[in-house]
């Protein structure tokens, strides 16, 4: 115990030795280029978006009119806001949940030994590596009512009687894109969980076996607790990325039919560059950002608390 404590202290002792003014200066010099870029290219535009959100503003800045808080009162009465919010939550929660299941399942599978495992490990990653635009086009082809193989197979199997228009149906369009998004993104979860699984010490499984644990017990009492930190991080990352994922929805449905499948990023883009309503676009962007910020803060606090208690 004592030895462990000393080891923990060691880095701090070292830092103190090296910690002088010169180190500060060179530290700042090293991070300066990226910091400047970050401020100019990320935080300054973000600040401008907040400013724009208080204006009624279109393509030409000459016509900008200051609205103040009234702008957000108007936004709260905008019936598109609740639709976009619902869609974004449905989209994100379903995609993240199924990517988690599929990612964990495939990682457990790929951690076993079987013929062709190396090949499958290489193949599994492909959907995540392929450009989003192309994934969107490929799924458009699969869903196509006439040319698509999905309808054909489902009809052959007798599951449906006539071709369905997946992407142009107001009720199904979003869910059809959700399925494609699960396919596109789950390999990232697979990679993360596979790396996590490979870090679980084999002794733990041996000990569990001696205690008479079956496969299910081993999963819930050894595997999952061991990879919990990886799960926590992966869920947060996939949540943020999915919430902000633009390409698939934009390519596959364009937010349609009748704006029923829009999520935040696609609707913001449409407002800005199809209708040139920069003010409205900025307000939706602010809501998007604040929601993710608050969500992430809560998530991080909650996961830290549960880590401390366990």
């Amino acid at each position, binding site marked *: 115990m004592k030895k462990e404590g000393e080891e923990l202290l060691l880095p701090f002792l*070292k830092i103190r030795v090296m910690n002088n003014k010169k*180190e*500060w200066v*060179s*530290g*700042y010099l*090293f*991070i300066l280029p*990226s*910091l400047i870029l*970050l401020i100019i*290219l*990320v*935080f300054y*535009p*973000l600040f401008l*978006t907040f400013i724009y959100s208080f204006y009624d503003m279109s393509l030409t800045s000459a016509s900008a009119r200051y609205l103040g808080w009234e702008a957000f009162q108007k936004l709260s009465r905008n019936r598109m806001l609740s639709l976009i919010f619902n869609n974004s939550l449905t989209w994100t929660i379903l995609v993240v949940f199924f990517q988690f299941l599929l990612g964990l*399942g*495939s990682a457990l*599978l790929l951690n076993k030994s*079987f013929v062709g495992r190396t090949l*499958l490990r*290489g*193949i*599994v990653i*492909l959907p995540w*590596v392929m*450009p*989003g*635009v*192309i*994934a969107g*086009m*490929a*799924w458009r*082809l*699969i869903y196509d009512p006439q*040319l698509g193989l999905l309808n*054909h197979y489902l009809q052959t199997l007798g599951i449906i009687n006539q071709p369905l228009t997946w992407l142009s149906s107001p009720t199904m369009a979003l869910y059809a894109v959700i399925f494609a998004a699960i*396919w596109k993104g789950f390999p990232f979860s697979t*990679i*993360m969980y596979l*790396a996590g699984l490979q870090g679980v010490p084999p002794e733990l499984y041996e000990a569990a076996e001696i205690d008479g644990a079956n496969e299910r017990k081993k999963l819930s009492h050894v595997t999952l607790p061991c990879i919990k930190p*990886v799960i926590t*991080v992966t869920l947060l*990352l996939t949540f*943020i990325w999915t*919430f902000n994922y*633009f*390409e698939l929805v934009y390519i596959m449905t364009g937010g349609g039919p009748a704006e029923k499948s829009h999520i935040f990023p*696609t609707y913001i883009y449409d407002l*800005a*560059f199809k209708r040139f309503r*920069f003010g409205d*676009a*900025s307000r939706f*962007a602010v809501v*998007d*950002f604040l929601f993710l*910020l608050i969500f992430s803060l809560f998530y991080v606090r909650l996961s830290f608390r549960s880590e401390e208690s366990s």
Partner: protein
Amino acid sequence: MSGSVLEVRKVHDQEKKPEQIITFIFALLLAIFVIFPFVVMVSMSLKTPGEQFTSPPYLIPHRPTLSNYLHVFGRGSMFAQYFLNSLLIASVSTLIVLGVSVFSSYGYARMDFPGKNVFLVLLLLSQLFPLAAIIVPLYRIMGNLKLIDSYFSLIIGYLVFSVPVGVWLLRSFFLGIPRELEEAAIIDGCTRFQAFWKIVIPLVRPGMGATAAYIFFITWQEFMFALTFITSEAKRTLPVGIFDFVGQYETNWGNLMAASILICIPVFILFLFVQKQLVGGLTQGAIKG
């Protein structure tokens, strides 16, 4: 004696057999699920126009042809130009990001200075909003600088999301290198910068390769900025350019899928080479962060 060992083994194998079959079935299902869209793409890219529109559709072309691929590079097609544009923009962006983030990530990984954690949090915060949230101000800034419809608009725009990713990834590679090496070099009379440049950089080279590949990959496929900042046909990049094959009334699926496969190939090859490094960096970066 040896007979009984063999027997025990046999029994063990028999117990394992059903389990292995189940594993194999799941592996097969996973493979089909992952590959199916790619098979659809390849199939369509090999079909003649007549076969493309046959109803009901089928997977294996009766008379496979490469004419779609030839068409993509053929007369009247801008594909080769788009390819060069994409290559140029992705390469230049990658070089800039690498140059900037190699110093910054080292600073974050190794040096100690007031406010370091604040800057790290800022770096993470920059991942929280959609690009759509800052595209309006960026568009106006580019407009004021007369950069709209230039390669620079995309190269600068791509720094927005690739610098934070580059710094974060490289930082995790630096963290994986033992501190003692630099300390030994400094004791031997190297300056801090020499220790960084001569000792650490060579060691982190594989990590730099993986980071470069990842940055190339995300800039190669970027769509929203490319769609917005570039207005003239000759300067388009591939993700926007393939929409040439999507007509207002009819989509040329054969050409579109052939072009799509050609766009995928460079990134797939790139990934093949850096997969191991990159996975290490991504998982380490996420967990240590």
